[in-house]
Structures are given as structure tokens and as C-alpha cells.
């Protein structure tokens, strides 16, 4: 797999330099690997900090800005960032109102954010945490590290971010974040494996004519391999997996997410099938977002995320957001 890079070692730093040049409205600390909204800390506002391995762009750096994250900490490719980054980010955005860490449920992310929380609290910053664990492909039991955090991260960051922007206090922003996570589920499908710069070849072997159901976003193989399916069949499978677990009793926000290597043309076509299944299952759709938001480098495939919303959450979704990757309102 050929890549548009110099050497694998500098991929993340290079990207941050490029991001700094493209987004003067952000403060990008390349050396310390922190992306902060330019006007941070905002007086009286709760800070929202997330982060995780790189390779999922625009997550998280592309979601920094008014109405969403206050700062993001990019780790190495597919590797959780280190506590130092998170502490620095928290310090940069804390106005005294405290900071919410949005943590995807991976052992690495959890351990590093936990350490960071301790250190930040030592520095006098009030920290709350929301764990995102929406991936229904992983059985949540004693026998796993629990469900992974995937597409719902966007929901949590957007909705908790909107609450923070409105001036909600830390406990409230945290509560919103938790509520969003509880009401969100995702399922992903890979049509090809991902190639990381460090490895330089696909992380697993996916023969032509087969796909992986229940894929994660780090190139780990899925739960099951099957003969290639049509867009229609994949939508049936993925939406059913999500709906059966979430059992939504009201309208949902739909995220039809590309994993990076699947053309937008196909994603929109897939969305048509997703909407069909939702209609067949009697699930009303309040909003739909289609695009590459929580990716896995060049992996071909998609994921479906649903978030069941009430009036408040829908209002927070529609609230203005001004980030590199998500923008609307005002």
C-alpha cells in the first residue's frame, strides 16, 4: 500500500503541522500534540477534551471548535495518546468550570485518560469522564474489555459540546454525555482491511468476495467473515443489529459513516438502504448525517450509528457548531 507520507514516524506531527496551516482558528501545539480551539479557555464554560489514536480523522481534531470539543489529543496511529497530552489539553481549556473527558472504551484510552484525570485533579482541575461504548458487535460481558467506542463518539461530542457551549455546568454536561452514550449504538462492516503507516501492509487478509461484519476502527478483524453482501443486505444486517440492541422508542439521529476508503457516492447509496430498513422497522428518523467522520485510515466499509433523541437532545444537535469537519447553524 502506497501512502502520501514522508516516513511513518512523523505522520502525526506532519498532519498537525498541516492542520495548523489550514485552520488558523485553532491553536495546534505540534510538539505537545494538542489541538485547542483558538479562543480557549472560554470564561465560565466547561471544557470538553477528547482524544484517541490517530487514523480516525476528522475525529477528534476535526471536531474542535465552538459547539463541540474544546481540545483534542491525537495519539500515534491507532494508539491512545499519553496522559501528558490530556493534562496539557485540560489545562489549556479549563476556565475553572471543569473539564469533561470523552473517552472511547478501549483499554489504552481508558487507562491513559484515568491517569491523566488523576494528574489533572492534582493540578486543581475538576475532571469528569464519559465513556463511549456503543459498538454492538462486541458482547459486553466479563469476557471482553466491553463494547468499543465508535460512531457514537460524534454524538457525544456534538451534544455534550452544545450543552457546554450553552453554559451548562460540568455535572450537566457529563449527564448529557452519558445519556447520549446510553441511547446510542453502532455497527460496522469492512470491505477491506486497513494499512497502517508503521506496518505498511494490510492488518489482516480479506479475500476478494468476503467482508468482515462487526469491524472496529483500528484494523482489528471483525466478529465474523461472510461472503460479500449487497448494500441492501448490509443495511439489513447492520441496522437490525443496532435496532435490536437499542430498541428505540422514539426518533433517532442516523449517522451513516464511511470508514475512509469507501466513496461518498456509495455511502449515499447505502444511506438509502439504511433509511429503508429503518422505515420497515418503524423507527422514525429525525436527522441524518452521511460522510466520513469516524474513519479507519484507508479501510473500505461503513458503520451505522443511531442515537435516540428527545426534544432536548434534538435541540442540542441542531445547535450551532463550527469545527473543521462539522459546521452548521448561525
Amino acid at each position: 500500500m502506497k501512502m502520501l507520507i514522508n516516513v511513518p514516524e512523523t505522520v502525526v506531527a506532519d498532519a498537525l503541522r498541516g492542520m495548523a496551516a489550514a485552520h488558523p482558528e485553532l491553536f495546534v501545539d505540534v510538539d505537545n500534540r494538542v489541538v485547542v480551539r483558538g479562543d480557549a479557555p472560554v470564561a465560565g464554560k466547561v471544557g470538553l477534551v477528547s482524544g484517541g489514536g490517530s487514523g480516525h480523522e476528522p475525529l477528534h481534531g476535526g471536531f474542535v471548535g465552538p459547539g463541540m470539543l474544546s481540545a483534542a489529543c491525537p495519539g500515534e496511529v491507532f494508539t491512545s495518546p499519553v496522559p501528558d497530552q490530556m493534562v496539557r489539553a485540560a489545562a489549556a481549556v479549563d476556565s475553572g468550570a471543569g473539564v469533561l473527558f470523552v473517552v472511547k472504551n478501549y483499554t489504552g484510552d481508558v487507562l491513559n485518560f484515568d491517569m491523566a484525570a488523576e494528574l489533572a485533579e492534582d493540578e486543581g482541575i475538576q475532571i469528569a469522564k464519559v465513556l463511549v461504548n456503543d459498538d454492538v458487535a462486541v458482547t459486553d460481558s466479563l469476557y471482553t474489555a466491553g463494547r468499543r467506542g465508535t460512531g457514537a463518539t460524534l454524538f457525544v461530542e456534538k451534544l455534550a459540546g452544545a450543552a457546554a457551549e450553552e453554559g451548562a455546568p460540568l455535572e450537566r454536561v457529563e449527564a448529557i454525555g452519558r445519556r447520549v452514550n446510553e441511547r446510542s449504538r453502532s455497527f460496522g462492516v469492512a470491505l477491506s482491511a486497513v494499512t497502517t503507516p508503521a506496518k505498511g501492509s494490510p492488518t489482516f487478509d480479506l479475500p476478494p468476495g468476503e467482508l468482515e461484519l462487526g469491524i472496529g476502527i483500528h484494523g482489528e478483524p471483525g466478529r465474523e467473515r461472510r461472503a460479500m453482501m449487497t448494500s441492501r443486505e448490509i443495511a439489513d444486517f447492520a441496522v437490525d443489529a443496532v435496532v435490536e440492541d437499542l430498541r428505540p422508542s422514539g426518533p433517532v439521529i442516523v449517522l451513516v459513516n464511511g470508514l475512509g476508503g469507501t466513496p461518498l457516492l456509495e455511502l449515499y447509496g447505502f444511506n438509502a438502504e439504511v433509511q429503508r430498513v429503518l422505515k420497515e422497522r418503524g423507527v422514525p428518523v429525525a436527522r441524518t448525517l452521511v460522510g466520513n467522520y469516524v474513519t479507519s485510515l484507508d479501510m473500505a466499509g461503513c458503520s451505522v450509528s443511531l442515537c435516540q433523541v428527545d426534544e432536548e437532545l434534538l435541540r442540542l444537535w441542531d445547535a450551532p457548531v463550527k469545527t473543521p469537519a462539522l459546521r452548521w447553524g448561525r
Partner: protein
Amino acid sequence: MTGEGDHVTDQKPDRILDSDFFRRWLTVAAAMVEREAGRLTELDSAIGDADHGSNLQRGFRSVTAELEKESPAGPGAVLVLAGRRLISTVGGASGPLYGTLLRRTGKALGDATEVTPGEFTEALRAGVAAVAQLGGAKVGDKTMLDALEPAAEALGASFSSFSAAAEAAEKGALATVPLQARKGRASYLGERSIGHQDPGATSSALLMAALAEAAEATP
């Protein structure tokens, strides 16, 4: 304590471990990680996310760089420094876990400028216990603990037990092959994690092999 000059190479119960010993351990470990990084990443690509080798490479490079600049006062300080570097540079699951292993082992060694193998064994057991607590894993979960726990058990008051510990770790790493992962990223695979050796257990075996090698080289 009085062992200087004697040559009982298969039985060095009384050798004293100083800062240099721990520096040597970490240097040998770093060299092994450099050599085996590709294999570790390869193992991680089968049941994880293909970064374990480069994670540890980044971490141990930073450890050796730091040890070239700094001269911590005693064994404990060397390990605490190394643990902190791992935490600050590795990320992922293995960063906090290995970082905690070394940091807590180092803390348990305290301020002494020299320690006995028996004292080290006690300290390492505390470090391994901290890893178990932090990650919530038990032996059999197909993690680094499957190599670390048997190694810590095999370690004793004698210097020769260091190579026994290396062997136990290696055996433990190999024994992860038939296991189904219950912690970490590999657990997402369910039954598909069976049949592959755990990358973290493999790197733990390296760490213990480095310990044995450092002991071998100890005058």
C-alpha cells in the same frame, strides 16, 4: 554482599543489584525490542491493531535516551524514571501497564542504592500486582500477565532464578496461543483470538529474557 570475586556462576544468591544492573536490564530490553519490534507488531496485527512493536520501540528509545542524560540515584529511581517515560511516550494499553510495572517495582525498591535479588523479587511482584489491578486481568486472560505472573513466581532470592523467570515467562507467552482473549483489544475477536500468541505476553517474555541476560552479564 560478600560475593565479589567468587565464581559460582550457577548460584549467585548474594549478588547485589545496583543502578548499573537496572540500567543494563533496560538497555538490553530496549535492544531486544528494537530487534523484535516487527514480530511484536505482526502478532498484534493478527489479534490487535498492529502497533505493539512500534509502541514499545518508541517507549524504550525514550527510556534509553533519558538514561543517557539522567543518572537516577538508585535502582528504584532508575525504574521509576523508566516507568514514567513509558507512560509519557507509549500510549495505548501497554504504555500505562508497562509504565506502572516499572514505576511500582521501582517505588517498592525505595531509595536503597543496592538491592538483593530477593528484594527485587518482592518489588517486581508488587509491580505485577499493580499491573493486574490497573488492567483488571487475571492469568489466562491472554495478556502480558500470562508471562509476568509465572515469571514473578519463578523469581526468588537467588540470582539464578532470573533465568528461570525468563523461561517461565517464555512458557507463559507460548501458552497464550490456545487461549481466548478476555482483556484488551483482542477480546473483541471472541473465539477468533484463539490460535495466536498474545503480543503483550511476548514482549513481557522479552523483558524477562533481558533481565536474565543482564544478570548473566553481571560480574
